[in-house]
C-alpha cells in the first residue's frame, strides 16, 4: 500500500480527494490536516464519508512521513510549507496554484505578489495527464492544473496541436463550489442562488496557464515542423523561462490570441467551457472529427460527445458530477471560419482531486483508471 497524507483536507477539493483515496485499492490515507479543525473527525466537514473513516484532522506540524503528500492548501500556503512537505514525503502533489506556472514574472503578474519560492518552479510537472503523461511517470513533484485551465486546455489541445487556431475566446460557466467552502458575501444564499454573475470577464488567473500551455504546444510543434509555422505565418519567441519538458508552463509571446471570461451560474459542481475558435483556414466537420478523434482515441477520461439526435447532444457538466471524465464536443459554423468547442468537467474531479489521483496512478505505474472507474450520476 502507498501511504498518503492530505494537507488542507477540510475544503471541498480535500474532501473529494479523501473520498477517492479512501476507496483507492492501492492507497492508505495516514493523515489529514486542518489547522482550524484539528482534533475533529474528518467526516464532520465531509458528511458523505461518515462511516468510511475515523480519521481526525491533525495540524500541519504533526505531519509524519508518508510516500505521497497531497496538498490542498489555499494558494500561497503550499509554497510556505513546501520544505516540510519535502522532508516528510518522497512525492508531493499540489492541487493549488503555487507551482503551476513555470515563470516567476508571470506568477507575479497574475497573482499580484512575488513568488515565494521561484527556484522550485522548474521542478514541478504540470499535472494534466493528457499533456504530460511521460513526465508524470518520472515525477516526484506535481502541480495539478486549475479547473478552468484543465477544461479549456483539454478542449483546445487538439486544435493547437494541429496549429489551426488563429484566435480563441473561451467562456466558462462555473458552479459555486469553485469558490471554496468558506462563506462570503458573494456566497450568501440570497445573493448566490439563481445568480448568473460575470465574475471575471478578463484577467482570470487561470488564463496564465491556458496561454502558456497552448502557446507552448504551438511553439514546440513549430520547432519540430518549421514548414507548418511558415504556412500559418506564426511568430514565435523563445521561452523567457528555462525550457523544461513536462514542467510547468513558461511564458511566451502569444502565437495565437487567447481570451477568457468566467461566469458563475446556478450549479454546485461543474464547468462548461464554450470556446469560440477562429481558424487559420477553413475546415469541414469531417476534418475536425479526425483531429479530435486522433487526439482523444487513447485517452481514458476524455470522450467526444457530439450526437445528431437526442437531448444529450453536447457536453453537459450535470452528467459528469462525481466523475473524472472530460466530455468534448464541437460544431463548425457553416457561415464563418469558426468552430465552437464545448467541454465539460466536474471542477472538483477532473479539475482537482480526480486529476490528482490520475497523476498519482501514473507516477506509481498503476492503471490510470484505478480508483476512478465510475461514471457520473444520471439523473443528478
Amino acid at each position, binding site marked *: 500500500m502507498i501511504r498518503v497524507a492530505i494537507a488542507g483536507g477540510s475544503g471541498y477539493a480535500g474532501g473529494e480527494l479523501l473520498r477517492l483515496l479512501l476507496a483507492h485499492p492501492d492507497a492508505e490515507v495516514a493523515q489529514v490536516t486542518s489547522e482550524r479543525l484539528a482534533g475533529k473527525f474528518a467526516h464532520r466537514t465531509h458528511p458523505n464519508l461518515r462511516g468510511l473513516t475515523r480519521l481526525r484532522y491533525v495540524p500541519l506540524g504533526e505531519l509524519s512521513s508518508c510516500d505521497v503528500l497531497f496538498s490542498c492548501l489555499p494558494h500561497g500556503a503550499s509554497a510556505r510549507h513546501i520544505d516540510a512537505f519535502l522532508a516528510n514525503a518522497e512525492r508531493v502533489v499540489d492541487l493549488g496554484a503555487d507551482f503551476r506556472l513555470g515563470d516567476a514574472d508571470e506568477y507575479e503578474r497574475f497573482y499580484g505578489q512575488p513568488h515565494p519560492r521561484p527556484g522550485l518552479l522548474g521542478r514541478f510537472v504540470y499535472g494534466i495527464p493528457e499533456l504530460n503523461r511521460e513526465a508524470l511517470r518520472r515525477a516526484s513533484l506535481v502541480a495539478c492544473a486549475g479547473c478552468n485551465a484543465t477544461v479549456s486546455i483539454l478542449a483546445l489541445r487538439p486544435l493547437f496541436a494541429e496549429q489551426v487556431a488563429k484566435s480563441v475566446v473561451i467562456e466558462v460557466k462555473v458552479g459555486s463550489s469553485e469558490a471554496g467552502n468558506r462563506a462570503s458575501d458573494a456566497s450568501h444564499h440570497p445573493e448566490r442562488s439563481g445568480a448568473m454573475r460575470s465574475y471575471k470577464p478578463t484577467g482570470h488567473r487561470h488564463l496564465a496557464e491556458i496561454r502558456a500551455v497552448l502557446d507552448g504546444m504551438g511553439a514546440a510543434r513549430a520547432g519540430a515542423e518549421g514548414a507548418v509555422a511558415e504556412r500559418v505565418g506564426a511568430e514565435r519567441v523563445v521561452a523567457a523561462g528555462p525550457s523544461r519538458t513536462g514542467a510547468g508552463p513558461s511564458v511566451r509571446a502569444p502565437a495565437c490570441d487567447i481570451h477568457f471570461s468566467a461566469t458563475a451560474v446556478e450549479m454546485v459542481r461543474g464547468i462548461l467551457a464554450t470556446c469560440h475558435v477562429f481558424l487559420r483556414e477553413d475546415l469541414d*466537420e469531417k476534418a475536425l472529427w479526425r483531429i479530435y*478523434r486522433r487526439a482523444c482515441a487513447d485517452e481514458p477520461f476524455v470522450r*467526444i460527445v*457530439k*450526437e*445528431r*439526435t437526442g437531448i444529450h447532444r453536447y457536453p453537459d457538466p450535470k452528467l459528469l458530477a462525481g466523475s473524472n471524465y472530460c466530455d468534448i464536443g464541437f460544431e463548425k459554423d457553416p457561415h464563418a471560419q469558426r468552430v465552437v468547442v464545448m467541454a465539460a468537467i466536474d471542477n472538483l474531479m477532473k479539475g482537482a482531486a480526480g486529476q490528482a489521483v490520475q497523476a498519482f496512478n501514473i507516477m506509481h505505474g498503476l492503471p490510470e483508471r484505478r480508483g476512478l472507474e465510475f461514471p457520473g450520476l444520471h439523473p443528478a
Partner: protein
Amino acid sequence: MHKCPVCDAEVAISEDPVEGELLECQECGVELEILALGPITLGEAPDAEEDWGE
C-alpha cells in the same frame, strides 16, 4: 469497412445488407441509410418519411 458520411468514422455493415437498411453511427449517432449496394453507398437517413424501404 465503410465510412460515416457525417463524421468519417468507420461503420460496420452486416454481411447481408439490404438497400434502404437503417444503421446508426456509433461515433456521432447519426442515423444512416444504405442508399445503394453496388458499391455500398451510405447517406443520412431522412428525418421523417412515410416509407423508408423497410
